[in-house]
């Protein structure tokens, strides 16, 4: 995946977009962060957040027209947050903690501001802080312009004066009673021309009737032409804002509301332009979302209860500390996080897709140093739920999958990440399990049953019974159904191993073609998805739809021993509505009323088998399953063998749909334990042997020599084998090798033997002692490092 593509994907994540209040506020006050601090009682931190966007916190918090309230998502859930009142609380209880504003070291250039209204004062504040020299020309005898017209009840004069002192404290030179008229004293030059000679830039924060400054070009309406983004006029270095801009923007409407927060925002934007002008850099680059704009942030308000404000406020209301904290706590803290809320994996790494995609990019491009995101990349189940719930359809599964392929290509995929599952794939496509046959009495196959490796590993008896039933159906002769045991290759695909996947496909096709390319009847949902995506030329049908079509279900029997069941849809069927429906109809036909889980069908969750999360991150996989099995008290029924077994492994009574068709007692079947990794292999090998023998009268190749070692494992050792991914055949090989070569150690304390063997990339260690005709195993462990005594290589 190229950087450009990753960047595009990253930009689809809207989590970092501003909440409605901030986007609507022309000055982009971070109301969400401010409310978060206030709700914790940290008024000082809240004040700092406020002052970052608002240079005159006293004035604005008393006169703001609060456009934010109109878009606050609390609006329809009890009423918008009382934002201005909260801002005044910041001022009252938090301003004393703030450090005085310190300007940067003085730079050489100086600019002039005409008019000391709120926009001009904001320009002065921003540029003085950056170290530019600033001189204000004000026609009247005081700064503040129209603010003095606000009634003192609303804007107490001490608040106004105190904020105006901020400008003085920054070292701005203030020239009051300095009227800047059309012409200069001697009538030869205008004042603007003289100011332009004297200063490096000029800002006109002038009143509405200023269209008679002759140096400035007028627009088609006869108003001063002002660039709406940069606030430049036609004369280089001269910028304009405040009411003169408002007149121009609102023309021909001559009456408009004065908005202090809008004037402040315009001052800020003009200051940005002037700062760039003084530095001689681009005025227009990267000027997005200035002033009020529409945010793309999505916030799900479903389930949020209505809550009215603590008290309704006006611009003179003063909160107590407690009242402010309580009101701030009503803020919804708007954010998207839709995917993170539904996915344990995305939650586990404490970020969200935008952040994750950046990390993935870094991980893929790092040359030296640790690749810290390897485990993150390998822990995703690739189930696609994130894409389903994302308001912008951003699907991490495809990004993660591509990243794995890139890691393999770069030879950076940790060998331990998927090896255990890939060895299992090798088993399933090889001699021990795979084979293809026409039905016993047929020479062609219209269909072939493809049960998939994990159903055979988990319920070999059901597969045998199923095939028997298929062979016994009336159409068995006219529409013969062959049998194909193989793996679909999904583990290789999930691991990003294009090479192994192709190898698996090649092996599949040779079996498939041998049967004359029949329609595959797929029992496994992961197989179904893999065939659909990766084998476009293979005709497939799900077992469930086919069983319905062929009327292969047992007649409805009123069974009393079936527990109450909730249905879990395997994640691979997320968009297979027909399969979901078919399974539900089958259950209904079996006389079962199922409960629906809150996250079902297209919103279903993975059992952690997908993407091999279970292998890359067992503790996370454990939590994923735990979360899933706690959605309902009922036992679960599903149509994926791995989902069933993973639930069972963590103690959830669960059934496979085939248990309801073939098990003698479904109630007992809910308690059927997960077979474990070793038995999964044995079951597959044994199934092949039984089927070949029973239906085709063939015998299988004898088992390898080492499998004659009869193991005696305590439950504890068995559990250790599962945890450490050590198969019984690994143990048998160690013991067989040790006994044949004599290479083993003796523990003088216990008298036990300890031996090791390295069949491929892993060294297995087994502590054992012969017992009767078997071998008791006390301890098993493994490592990947190669260890050799010097000179023994």
């Amino acid at each position, binding site marked *: 995946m190229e950087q450009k593509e990753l960047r595009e994907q990253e930009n689809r994540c809207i989590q970092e977009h501003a909440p409605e209040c901030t986007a609507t506020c022309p000055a982009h006050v971070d109301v969400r962060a401010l409310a978060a601090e206030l709700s914790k009682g940290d008024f000082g931190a809240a004040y700092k957040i406020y002052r970052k966007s608002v240079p005159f916190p006293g004035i604005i918090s008393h006169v703001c027209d609060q456009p934010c309230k109109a878009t606050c998502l609390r609006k329809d859930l009890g009423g918008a947050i009382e934002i201005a009142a909260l801002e005044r609380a910041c001022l009252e209880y938090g301003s004393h903690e703030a450090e005085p504003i310190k300007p940067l070291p003085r730079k050489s250039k100086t600019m002039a501001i005409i008019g000391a209204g709120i926009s001009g004062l904001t320009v002065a504040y921003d540029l003085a802080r950056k170290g530019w020299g600033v001189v204000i020309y004000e026609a009247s005898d005081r700064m503040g312009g129209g603010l003095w017209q606000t009634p003192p009840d609303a804007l107490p004069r001490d608040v106004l004066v105190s904020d105006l002192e901020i400008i003085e404290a920054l070292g701005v030179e203030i020239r009051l009673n300095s009227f800047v008229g059309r012409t200069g004293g001697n009538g030869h030059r205008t004042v603007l021309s003289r100011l332009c000679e004297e200063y490096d830039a000029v800002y006109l924060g002038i009143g509405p009737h200023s269209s008679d400054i002759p140096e400035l070009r007028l627009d088609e309406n006869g108003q001063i032409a002002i660039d709406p983004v940069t606030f430049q006029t036609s004369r280089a270095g001269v910028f304009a804002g405040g009411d003169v801009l408002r007149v121009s923007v609102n023309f021909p409407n001559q009456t408009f509301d004065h908005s202090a927060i809008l004037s402040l925002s315009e001052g800020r934007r003009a200051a940005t332009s002037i700062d760039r002008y003084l530095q001689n850099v681009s005025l227009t680059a990267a000027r997005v979302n200035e002033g009020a704009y529409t945010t793309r942030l999505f916030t799900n308000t479903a389930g949020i209860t209505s809550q009215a404000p603590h008290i309704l406020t006006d611009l003179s209301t003063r909160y107590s500390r407690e009242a402010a904290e309580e009101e701030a706590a009503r803020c919804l803290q708007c954010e998207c996080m839709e995917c993170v809320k539904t996915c344990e994996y995305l939650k586990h790494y404490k970020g969200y897709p935008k952040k994750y995609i950046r990390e993935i990019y870094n991980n893929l491009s790092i040359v030296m140093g640790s690749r810290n995101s390897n485990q993150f990349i390998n822990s995703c189940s690739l189930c696609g739920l994130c894409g389903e719930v994302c308001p912008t359809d951003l699907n991490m599964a495809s990004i993660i999958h591509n990243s794995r392929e890139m890691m393999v290509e770069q030879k950076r995929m940790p060998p331990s990440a998927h090896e255990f599952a890939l060895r299992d794939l090798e088993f399933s496509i090889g001699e021990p399990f795979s084979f293809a046959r026409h039905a016993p009495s047929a020479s062609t196959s219209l269909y072939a049953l493809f049960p998939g490796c994990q159903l055979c590993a988990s319920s070999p008896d059901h597969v045998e019974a199923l095939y028997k039933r298929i062979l016994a159906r009336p159409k068995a002769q006219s529409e013969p159904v062959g049998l194909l045991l193989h793996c679909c290759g999904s583990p290789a695909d999930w691991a990003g191993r294009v090479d192994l996947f192709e190898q698996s496909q090649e092996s599949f096709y040779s079996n498939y073609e041998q049967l004359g390319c029949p329609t595959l009847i797929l029992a496994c949902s992961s197989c179904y998805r893999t065939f659909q995506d990766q084998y476009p030329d293979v005709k497939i049908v799900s077992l469930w739809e086919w069983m319905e079509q062929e009327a292969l279900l047992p007649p409805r029997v009123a069974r009393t021993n079936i527990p109450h069941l909730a249905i879990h849809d395997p994640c691979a069927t997320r968009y297979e509505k027909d399969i979901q429906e078919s399974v539900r109809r089958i259950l209904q036909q079996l006389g079962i009323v199922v409960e629906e889980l809150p996250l079902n069908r297209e919103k279903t969750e993975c059992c952690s088998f997908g993407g091999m999360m279970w292998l890359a991150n067992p503790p996370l996989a454990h939590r994923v399953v735990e979360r899933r099995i706690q959605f309902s008290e009922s036992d679960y029924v599903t149509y994926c063998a791995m989902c069933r077994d993973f639930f069972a492994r963590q103690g959830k009574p669960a059934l496979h749909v085939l248990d309801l068709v073939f098990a003698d007692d479904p109630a007992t079947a809910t308690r059927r334990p997960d077979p474990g990794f070793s038995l999964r292999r044995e079951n597959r090998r044994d199934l092949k042997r039984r089927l070949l023998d029973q239906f085709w009268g063939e015998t299988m190749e004898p088992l390898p020599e080492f499998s004659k070692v009869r193991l005696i494992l305590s439950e504890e050792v068995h559990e250790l084998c599962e945890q450490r991914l050590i198969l019984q055949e690994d143990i048998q090989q160690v013991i067989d090798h040790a006994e044949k070569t004599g290479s083993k150690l003796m523990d003088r304390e216990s008298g036990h*033997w300890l031996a090791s063997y390295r069949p491929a990339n892993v060294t297995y260690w087994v502590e054992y002692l012969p017992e009767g005709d078997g071998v008791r195993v006390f301890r098993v462990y493994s490592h990947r490092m190669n260890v050799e005594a010097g000179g023994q290589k």
Partner: protein
Amino acid sequence: MSEHVLASDLERWECAKCGIPLVLGKVDVSYLNSSYQVDLLHCPKCGMVFVSEDLAVGKMAELEKSLEDK
């Protein structure tokens, strides 16, 4: 005394094939493109090395992971 060998293991193990006790000495340990020499118990005659369970699932596993992520 090696940091990878427990004192209690020192006199405990003997090579069954050669019938002699294991001794502490330099052993080559390698993974991916890295290799190290560490002191481990091994048979001075046939070279069979003893890796304890603690070492395998502890320090070795950690080092394997960090080398895989390098």
